[in-house]
């Protein structure tokens, strides 16, 4: 057991999977010698060599497209897209090829590919370095979308992603890369993709969140009156959605608040809200609340904390939902 940050937990998972399976390789911009701009892949190239930890040319479509070929050709590539804002050039390869190959070839061509992408705001980064595009990829058939909120889950989920026979986008909430440490077992373990986690059990309101926002939800819960009991669910996987976990909770509480960084309209909160309504209609005591980013562009960093759902906004929404 070691006390690790999220960055260290991801690094450990990569090391262990590369040791366990020689097909596993890491590629992306600056991931080799430099160890990645967030140092997530630090030390890997020294350990595994330049063939398996590859500094690629600066071209996201190239990274994604060649990774598809590597996967089809029998490797287990773990590609890094340096920031979520740079998924744009890789979108075509990811959505029109990686996601589709199994279906369009009726299982003859498969793409066991992991795409690691730092995601989200709150680190005073430049433009297009702070977005939360998970809903776009959850909307794409054939892709699994994962976002850990803790070092322990980060390791187990990444190992699952690398071993998964299908493409997985593994979003890394950069705001909590080094925000806190957690005990992470040295041995390899997996967290199943598609399973949410009840972080705190409660009776009155269900709060559903993922990524860095889980940490803010916990802070918000500290701000609430002591007699208001909140059940906090960390989705861990965006798609496939663990709706059973949410439904079980909402049937108990009758109230649900969804919290995410991404814009509200057609955000993933909309999907969760719709499914809660479909499955828990007669159990609902209040309209499902969404605490989300505004339907605007993520501002430059002087205003980014005002854009992101704050502890105050989350606490207020939980309180309002409970009082309805």
């Amino acid at each position: 057991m070691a006390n690790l940050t999220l960055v260290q937990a991801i690094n450990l998972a990569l090391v262990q999977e590369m040791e366990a399976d020689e097909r596993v390789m890491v590629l992306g911009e600056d991931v080799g010698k430099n160890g990645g701009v967030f140092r997530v892949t630090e030390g890997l190239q020294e350990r595994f060599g330049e063939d398996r930890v590859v500094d690629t040319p600066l071209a996201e479509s190239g990274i994604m497209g060649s990774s598809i070929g590597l996967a089809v050709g029998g490797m287990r590539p773990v590609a890094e897209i340096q920031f979520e804002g740079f998924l744009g050039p890789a979108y075509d390869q990811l959505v029109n090829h990686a996601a589709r190959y199994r279906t369009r070839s009726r299982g003859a061509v498969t793409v066991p590919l992991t795409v690691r992408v730092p995601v989200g705001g709150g680190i005073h980064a430049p433009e297009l370095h702070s977005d939360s595009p998970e809903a776009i990829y959850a909307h794409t058939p054939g892709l699994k979308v994962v976002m850990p909120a803790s070092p322990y889950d980060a390791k187990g989920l990444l190992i699952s992603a690398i071993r998964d026979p299908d493409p997985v986008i593994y979003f890394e909430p950069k705001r909590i890369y080094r925000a806190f440490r957690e005990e992470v077992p040295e041995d390899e373990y997996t967290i199943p993709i598609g399973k949410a986690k009840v972080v705190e059990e409660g009776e009155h309101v269900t709060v559903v969140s993922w990524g860095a926002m889980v940490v803010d939800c916990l802070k918000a819960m500290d701000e609430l009156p002591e007699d208001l009991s909140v059940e906090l669910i960390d989705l861990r996987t965006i798609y496939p959605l663990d709706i059973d976990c949410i439904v079980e909770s909402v049937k108990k509480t009758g109230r649900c608040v969804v919290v995410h960084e991404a814009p509200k309209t057609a955000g993933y909160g909309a999907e969760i809200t719709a499914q809660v309504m479909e499955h828990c209609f007669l159990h609902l005591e209040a309209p499902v609340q969404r605490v989300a980013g505004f339907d605007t562009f993520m501002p430059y960093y002087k205003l980014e904390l005002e854009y992101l759902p704050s502890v105050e906004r989350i606490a207020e929404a939980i309180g309002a939902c409970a009082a309805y």
Partner: protein
Amino acid sequence: MPKKVAYKAQIEHLQILDENGKLDEKLAKGTLTDKQVLALCEHIILCRHYDEIAFKLQRSGRMGTYPQNKGQEAIAATAMAVTRNDWMVPCYRENSALFLHGLPMEHILLHWMGDERGNQIPEDVNVMPISIPIGTHMLHAMGIAWAKKLQKTDHVALTYFGDGATSEGDFHEAMNFATVMKAPCVFICQNNQWAISVPREKQMASETVAQKGLAYGADCIQVDGNDVFAVYKATKDAVAKARKGEGVTLIETLTYRMGDHTTADDARRYRDSKELEAWAKRDPLLRIQKYLAAKGMWDDKKEKAAEAGAKERVAQIVKNCENIAKPSTDDIFDYTFATLPDDLRAQRDSMRTNSLSLEPGQSTLRSPEPQHA
């Protein structure tokens, strides 16, 4: 400081068999044997008949959109320059090469008949499904080639694309990745002069497609794409180099799209029939027939026999494709992931998306009586 030349290059053009069927014996040395040329001749007759039948199937409503391959069949010679271990990552005008590389001919028809089973390529055939978006698949070829290198095999990937595809960013990224990673990848541009309605000279300001590869440090050559000898030789040389880990080659084959872009297109709207007539004289099939006839290896009787054989074979292929049972609706879902998530399982089993129809008991409720005014 005096000025220096920082870089200098030229593009070679290779033709071995001219349009009159005359062979440059010196250049032809060590290329195709007469037996291979005869096999190619018969294969091209088969592919051309297949192409005509595919066109007719579309016109008679028995098949969806189809891109004719007519005129570009010399590309089949690339298949003779590789082994079954090597990969082909195609666009959609390389049927003749894919068939020779082992792709059962039903697959292409099935694809255009709106059936994904056309892309369900047998495991022992190293051919990727034809790629519909332009230019994106070259990166997959590069990645496959890279994987084969990392696995320490000597297998090579060939990828095919048109002149228009070289305007796409992914072409440039694929060339760059391939040369930087020293991937055993051969890029084959079938420059057929037209990207739907846009002619080559509006597509690019460069004199050749081949020279685009120079920027990435690839070896580049332009060949007469209607000359099976030249296509074969350029591919053979490129594959040998790739196999030894000695670099990437971009081959530009100058050819011509004799048909429309697809059955949904009418090339008369934008191109001069005189151009077509001029290229018809350079037909890849005509010239190998002339070549073989001069050697006493081809005559009317042989041609009729080849045509009859092709007719019979294609009729059987069409029959196989038309008689295949319609896919199950389960197939819409079953290949989305290796293991179906619960939500897709529920949608598959009910063929519904609304939640009430998925709840036991709810879906058995009687529909409301229709209301009449």
